[in-house]
């Protein structure tokens, strides 16, 4: 059985460490916040200008002046701080954020990622994604291994316009976990989802990955 979205998020949460400052992208990455281990102190950054993002508010307690980067209403925690966008991206670009977990349309075997634009379709914009992949210390891409047509999204070279080059350190899909091996400059299969076979993941992976 491949992992569900929630299981993928739970697996990604295992990459968190105590004291980490983390930026979570929109979509599946947002779910990672639900799996932070008890007793572990992880501070979530929202790139619109907040550290220490709290949970969604109880109905009636929402504040239009307090949203996350997905424009959802949120709350503060005792440790929270607010700042302007220049300071927020100084944190990101300056390498102060320990971990970014973000979605992807394609990830290439060299660590390139594409997740912002499909030529011919209306382009909404990259938002903060290019800053995050370029600046954050460690980037994990969290995405379904194949697209709706069954084609691999973990490929030899990105076909879509890049969000960043050579910046993804780990890939987590519904089929397994792939860690970038710095020495070989290549991804290596680290873990398979339950009941997913090596043959299946090999068949669905276009990227040249170390499987042994």
């Amino acid at each position, binding site marked *: 059985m491949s992992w569900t979205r929630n299981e993928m998020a739970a697996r990604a949460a295992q990459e968190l460490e105590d004291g980490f400052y983390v930026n979570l992208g929109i979509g599946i990455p947002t779910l990672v916040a639900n799996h932070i281990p008890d007793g572990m102190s992880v501070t979530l950054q929202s790139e619109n200008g907040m550290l220490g993002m709290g949970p969604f508010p109880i109905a009636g307690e929402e504040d239009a002046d307090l949203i996350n980067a997905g424009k*959802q209403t949120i709350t503060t925690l005792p440790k929270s701080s607010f700042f302007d*966008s220049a300071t927020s991206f100084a944190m990101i*670009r300056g390498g102060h954020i320990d971990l970014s977990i973000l979605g992807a349309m394609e990830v290439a075997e060299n660590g390139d990622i594409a997740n912002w634009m499909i030529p011919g379709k209306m382009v909404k914009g990259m938002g*903060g994604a290019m800053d995050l992949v370029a600046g954050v210390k460690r980037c994990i891409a969290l995405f379904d291994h194949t697209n709706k047509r069954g084609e691999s999204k973990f490929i030899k070279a990105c076909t879509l316009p890049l*969000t960043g080059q050579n910046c993804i350190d780990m890939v987590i899909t519904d089929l397994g976990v792939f860690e970038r091996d710095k020495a070989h400059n290549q991804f290596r299969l680290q873990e398979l989802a339950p009941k997913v076979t090596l043959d299946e993941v090999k068949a669905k992976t276009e990227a040249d990955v170390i499987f042994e």
Partner: protein
Amino acid sequence: MSKVFSTAGEALGGLCHDGLTIMSGGFGLCGIPENLIAALRDSGASDLTVISNNAGVDGFGLGQLLETRQIKKMISSYVGENKEFERQYLGGELELEFNPQGTLAERIRAGGAGIPGFYTKTGVGTLIAEGKEHKDFEGETFILETGLKADIAIVKAWKGDAEGNLIFKATARNFSPMMAMAGQITVAEVDEIVPVGALDPNFIHTPGIFVQRIVEAKCEKRIEQLTVREA
């Protein structure tokens, strides 16, 4: 020579002309200068270049200026929430320049700080880097981005005083402090004008030197994604 005006329309009085470059604060609909945007629409000024992280939603925020075709070009990082924007852009009626969000924020700060250009690694190897100067520092490649300025910056703050000192609330701060620096003329609308001396000098986000005009105005403050949890 008071900085205080009675209405948003008066606060923009004499400033609005065709062809201006306008910076408008806010992230999504959070912290946008609602009343000044409406006053800008009422001024009729067109062929505007608008620098703003987003483009509002249909019929609200900068969406109001799109409906009236007053905007010629947007410089933004994300414009996904607006159908009219999409229609005009796909129809070739609207120019659009995408900037990575952090690059946009830093370009605006640079413009206000007298820095005409800076190097960043954001966007290296992507479409954003095309045509831009590349330069290596300590073995890593960066691209040159330029400072951005505006004829007018319009921002929304929480409280302000007659000196133009401003404080912002929560995540409604976002791009506004930098835009206040980068506007030739900066006009601020605030929830509340307080007496000079009421703001603690240690905790003023935008010193009055960056604000030329200020108006107290009531905001609707729409919420784009109301998200709640079980009590």
